[in-house]
């Protein structure tokens, strides 16, 4: 087994691609030396605090700022009555969204920014913000999706079609000997990065510098420029360190242009940091879904037809689709499939991308349904998946560029000890504790966008070579600084210590959004390509002495090269996805319903692994979040007011250390020469996929209770335990 797989324990020597080196910025981070967007020292800084609405829908009847303005140190209170008019352009996601920029008196969700208070200290601004008195003409909000399913509509065209039909659904179902047909629900979930959204805006004449917590330096720059009506070249956007994004920092939200506006109004630099409560509403969340999955199969487990219908909520002001049914289009080899997506408008903040948008929620429904089918067929869940293994992309018929899912099932099952599973619920026990094993498939698309990188090679006095590589990507905690240095070092034949990789400044060559798990594939390819181009320019191989000799003959003993790197026609030829298999053990207290997850074993085929240590950390993070999604996470919206009721980290539960047991990660060997120059598929999102279903399936195996609505809290188990 181990000869076929590479685990994080198989140490790759050296510092190049694959080596499990420590983060190059690790020391800066643990010593506080890494400066995040709210920590950039700026002389003369002032502090802006948002005032947010306390109703969900209606208009501001009056807004009294006199008490706020009389607080010592207050420089300005900006409301819709005195805010400068902005040329707000139409939305263009991911970067540009429909925002609340104090341009009118309308309120579209509870928690919407309705005023900005700027003061000389954060404390004074905070105090003053709480003294702004607002009267509303409030209307009754619509907040409950299940009660408003009759208003569901087909979303406008997105990247993929909202509905698909493959084959004859009725005929396919008619061939089925066993059918499962159930509804599944997932709640609103908030991102809760450790670092809240934070913006520091500094004007110098007509030039603006914005330090912003963003996943998209270039898109953020363009969005803020267009929104406030200045040329993009007059805006510099900086994000040296970002304390987690997970999707909510992939868009520019209202506070960014508001900070720029406030800074221009008071004529001083402004820092605006959202409070934890303000992270609920104005900056997106994963929407809730209600999904139906139908699977028909013959008695040998061969699927004859499937359907997957997903309804998710969006806001009154923007259409955001959680593409939960997309995964069912590619995961199993069914000849017949129908999928649909619908939206229901609610008076809440606009939802947005959250780690594996679509796949995280979709795999919960699909992989729960597959488990229910396995139970109905009395078939092993892994065997059922192998029976319906898709050798080619079922939707397009294209070959996969690579697919190691079969190997993931095998390696995962073996490392987990799946063969010891007893399929009868309640058969495995330890005193009061019922033990269950569950599994699910994991998958995420492999995406790539155009990126540009710069490489400057310099010979030093000792015959050595130093490389500087730059591109305006961002490190959202994933390790971009580290892996890009490794990619460059490998391409140039240099030790990683001699490569300096810089990112996070819009003055650098452009890179795409760090979303869709595509930073490694897009920016990594650009970094690789620019280094190769530099060697070609010098006419040498990846060898330090050769590079040094070639540089010695050049004036200034250096070379600077900039290249674009973009996907070619490979996507027309191949279907491109990562795959994995997640196995979990749960321990459920028979009487009290407490669910614990002592161990998770997962195997992934993700192409080339750039840094085994960081990649393993990424998968750990995804799985930990998957455990939270399965058992704990839920944003509570008050039905009467649309108010977010558990908007803090004590009341909104994410896993704590005590919730996490052993996590065993294997990356199976997968060489993909089709996807991009460095053969990486991206790993940011696949880790969360499948986890919630794997846990719910394990809980069924332990208790005989099938929970189809997340989170799987103990009240859904207690009293229902059937063993």
């Amino acid at each position, binding site marked *: 087994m181990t000869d076929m797989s590479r685990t994080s324990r198989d140490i790759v020597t050296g510092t190049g691609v694959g080596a499990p080196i420590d983060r190059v910025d690790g020391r800066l981070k643990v010593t506080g030396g890494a400066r995040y967007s709210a920590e950039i020292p700026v002389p003369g800084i002032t502090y802006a605090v948002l005032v947010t609405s306390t109703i969900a829908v209606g208009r501001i009847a009056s807004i009294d700022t006199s008490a706020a303005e009389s607080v010592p140190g207050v420089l300005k209170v900006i409301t819709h009555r005195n805010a400068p008019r902005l040329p707000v352009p139409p939305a263009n996601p991911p970067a540009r969204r429909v925002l609340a920029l104090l341009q009118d008196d309308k309120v579209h969700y509870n928690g919407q920014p309705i005023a900005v208070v700027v003061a000389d200290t954060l404390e004074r601004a905070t105090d003053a913000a709480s003294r702004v008195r607002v009267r509303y003409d409030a209307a009754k909000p619509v907040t409950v999706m299940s009660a408003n399913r009759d208003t569901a509509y087909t979303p406008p065209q997105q990247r993929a079609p909202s509905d698909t039909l493959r084959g004859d659904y009725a005929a396919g179902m008619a061939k089925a000997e066993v059918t499962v047909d159930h509804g599944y629900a997932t709640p609103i979930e908030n991102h809760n990065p450790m670092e809240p959204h934070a913006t520091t805006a500094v004007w110098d004449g007509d030039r603006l510098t914005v330090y912003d917590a963003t996943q998209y330096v270039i898109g953020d720059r363009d969005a803020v420029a267009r929104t406030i009506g200045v040329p993009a070249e007059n805006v510099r956007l900086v994000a040296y360190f970002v304390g987690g994004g997970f999707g909510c920092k992939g868009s520019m939200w209202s506070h960014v242009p508001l900070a720029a506006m406030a800074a221009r109004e008071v004529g001083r630099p402004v820092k605006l940091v959202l409070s934890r409560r303000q992270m609920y509403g104005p900056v997106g969340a994963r929407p809730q879904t209600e999904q139906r999955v139908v699977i028909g199969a013959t008695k040998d487990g061969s699927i004859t037809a499937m359907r997957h219908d997903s309804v998710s909520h969006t806001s009154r002001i923007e259409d955001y689709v959680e593409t939960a049914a997309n995964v069912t289009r590619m995961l199993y080899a069914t000849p017949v499939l129908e999928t649909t997506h619908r939206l229901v408008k609610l008076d809440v903040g606009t939802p947005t991308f959250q780690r594996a948008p679509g796949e995280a929620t979709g795999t919960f429904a699909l992989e729960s349904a597959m488990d229910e089918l396995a139970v109905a067929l009395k078939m092993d869940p892994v065997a059922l998946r192998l029976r319906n293994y898709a050798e080619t992309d079922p939707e397009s018929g294209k070959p996969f560029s690579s697919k190691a899912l079969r190997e993931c099932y095998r390696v995962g099952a073996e490392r987990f000890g799946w063969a010891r599973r007893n399929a009868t619920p309640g058969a495995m026990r330890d005193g009061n504790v019922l033990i269950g094993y569950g599994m699910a498939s994991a998958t995420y698309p492999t995406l790539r966008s155009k990126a540009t990188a710069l490489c400057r090679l310099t010979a030093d006095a000792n015959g050595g070579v130093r490389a500087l590589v730059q591109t305006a990507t961002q490190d959202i905690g994933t390790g971009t600084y580290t892996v890009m240095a490794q990619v460059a070092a490998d391409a140039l034949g240099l030790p990683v210590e001699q490569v300096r990789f810089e990112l996070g400044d819009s003055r650098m060559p452009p890179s795409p959004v760090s979303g869709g798990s595509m930073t490694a594939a897009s920016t990594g390819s650009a970094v690789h390509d620019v280094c190769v181009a530099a060697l070609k320019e010098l006419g040498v191989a990846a060898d330090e002495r050769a590079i040094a000799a070639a540089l010695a003959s050049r004036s200034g003993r250096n070379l600077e090269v900039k290249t674009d790197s973009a996907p070619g026609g490979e996507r027309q030829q191949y279907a491109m996805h990562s795959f994995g298999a997640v196995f979990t053990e749960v321990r459920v207290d028979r009487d009290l319903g407490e669910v614990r997850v002592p161990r998770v074993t997962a195997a992934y085929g993700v192409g080339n692994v750039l840094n085994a240590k960081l990649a393993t950390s990424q998968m750990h993070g995804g799985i930990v979040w998957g455990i939270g999604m399965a*058992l704990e996470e839920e944003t509570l919206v008050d039905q009467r*007011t649309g108010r977010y009721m558990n908007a803090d980290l004590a009341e909104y539960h994410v896993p*704590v250390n005590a919730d996490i047991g052993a996590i065993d990660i294997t990356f199976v060997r997968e060489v993909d020469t089709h996807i991009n120059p460095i053969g990486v598929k991206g790993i940011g999102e696949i880790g969360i996929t499948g986890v919630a279903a794997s846990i719910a399936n394990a809980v069924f195996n332990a208790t005989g209770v099938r929970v189809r609505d997340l989170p799987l809290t103990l009240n859904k188990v207690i009293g229902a335990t059937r063993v």
Partner: protein
Amino acid sequence: MRPFEYSSATSTTAASRAAGADASARFIAGGTTLLDLMKLNVETPGRLIDINALAVNEPAMTAITETAGGGLRIGALVRNSDLAWSPVIQARFPVLSEALLAGASGQIRNMATVGGNLMQRTRCYYFRDTAMPCNKREPGTGCAAIEGHNRIHAVLGTSSRCIATSPGDMPVAMAALDAVVRVRSVRGERTIPLVNFHVTPGAHPERETVLQAGELIVGVDLPAMPWARRSHYRKVRDRASYAFALASAAVALDVAAGRVRNVRIALGGVGTKPWRSPAAERALVGQPATAAAFRAAAELALQGAVPHRDNAFKIELAKRTLVRALTTVAGMA
């Protein structure tokens, strides 16, 4: 947070005098609840009276000492961590140590104090959000929880004005242990049985304790209870740590020849105050120490429980939690 005056008290008398002179004053010790609520503008004290300096001037405030009757006297400024890890507490009153360690996080326990923990306020979502009505925060505005999100709310001791849960763990263990709260003011010192220290909301949910203006908690006495060496705290919650109880049970059990000779039962996570259950205790005394008898007592403990939209499960959960605590301490689980 609103601006406030700050002073540091050098004696308990000075502290209570300062508090008695200013109705907007609050004592601050660890600050783990108060500062949190001040940041939310739920608490807007005009003055904070810092009592941490009393640890130096009045050593009894941070001491755990033997009392003449064989019990323990615990100073109000003893930190939760220190109390939890005190060998004498662990040996004689394990239920108290377990309750403390089941609460909050290590960092918070290092700051939180015994006196402050008795004053901890509810985690009701609506209480903590000044945009919502709340009779506890603003009397007369109504209770938004009764028809709102109330999965975490109380089923015992509620009223039509308030269903907020008493959040603590330590007070539940202390309720089971017949603890007595000692309070001091310029009028002198008085003692209050812990079970009478907190009050149910009734018509006045804004009133949570019987403390009067200027009174400062100076300590808690635990009477001798040799059989409390067999005591236990079981907490059930939505994650393994750092979450408030959905239900908890503090029990002490004295079994002789298979029969219950003495028992103490208190529940957390389900009541509007730390919920001692004398009826369940009376029913168990003299009964065989069996799961069936424990279950019968649990039925009595939850008698009169009133569920709301999301929290009906708590009634059964609390019964099972109590049975589990009793079977555990009886060596049956």
